[in-house]
């Protein structure tokens, strides 16, 4: 693969290495989707099993959740803007967008950790009831994914600084882009079915 012409040399209709990598990564994302589907199903089954402990309505604060949602949504957009800079070959712009995305993701994780510690402090930890166990597992798994995404962002930024925007970097950025947008998709389901559903 030529470094100066990362994609332009591949005129074969979508079956070059790069697109096969993306398809492979997509299959990984879909298997991740199944993990979340199982966790959502578990949560749905256990949501009323509060074992005499607090239910979601007394624990969750919607304005706080709206804040988390906005952080993740804006970070999804800034990553998209970064991808456009990457395709245009504007390295500095890409790095700036990656940094903005990282800060937004970090703020999201900070808010989530704050929420978790508040809940545990109020005596609503994961061992309190089946409802809270499944809540912490589901939301925690998503948070863990976002944390992995943050680590990947740092690694990616380092690679771009060190090796430049070659075809390999663009391919990996495309995978990270899918991953980051995918986490926002999962979060849409989380805020709808975990948080909003409690306040109907």
């Amino acid at each position, binding site marked *: 693969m030529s470094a100066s012409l990362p*994609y*332009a040399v*591949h*005129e074969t*209709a*979508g079956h070059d290495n*790069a*697109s096969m990598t*993306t*398809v492979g990564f*997509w*299959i990984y994302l*879909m298997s991740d*989707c*199944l993990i979340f*589907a*199982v966790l*959502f*199903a*578990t949560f*749905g*089954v256990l949501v009323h099993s509060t*074992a*005499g402990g607090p239910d979601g309505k007394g624990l969750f604060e*919607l304005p706080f*959740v*709206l804040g988390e*949602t*906005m952080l993740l*949504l804006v970070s*999804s*957009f800034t990553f*998209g*803007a970064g*991808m*456009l800079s990457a*395709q245009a070959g504007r390295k500095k712009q890409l790095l700036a967008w990656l940094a903005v995305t990282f800060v937004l993701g970090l703020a999201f994780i900070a808010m989530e950790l704050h929420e978790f510690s508040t809940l545990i402090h109020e005596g609503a930890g994961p061992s309190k009831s089946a409802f809270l166990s499944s809540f912490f597992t589901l939301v925690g798994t998503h948070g863990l994914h976002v944390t992995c995404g943050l680590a990947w962002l740092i690694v990616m930024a380092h690679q771009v600084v060190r090796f430049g925007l070659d075809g390999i970097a663009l391919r990996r950025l*495309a995978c990270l882009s*899918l991953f980051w*947008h*995918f986490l*926002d*998709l999962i979060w*849409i*389901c989380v*805020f*709808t*079915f975990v948080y*909003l*559903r409690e*306040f*109907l």
Partner: protein
Amino acid sequence: MKAPLPHSGMEHAESHAHGNLKSYVVGFVLSLVLTIASFGTVMTDLVPHASRLATIVILCVVQLFVQLVYFLHMGTAKSQRQNTAIFACTSLLIVIVVAGSLWVMHNANVNMMPMSMSIQSALKHP
């Protein structure tokens, strides 16, 4: 996504697969509106309680598709057909897993749990 790519100069599969600024802005604005609508449904009194669940589920599904199309560039373009097909299969599995679990466990709860049993009485008679 069916939208033609304006003045990109290359009708190339890769440009389809990565989108353009317009698709990101449109996706972002739509997501923003749908998110605010979801929270508004629950946090204000504009929607009657009976239809709130249906409203937030519909808004959720619409936003999922908005982001799949505008952010993840899923669609019927040649380079994306494979991904779309894999996604459709996964969706089927997800529906079976989630709906099946809820259905089976609901039936188990209704038919097998003695309604009078509390935690205290369950602990007394193991």
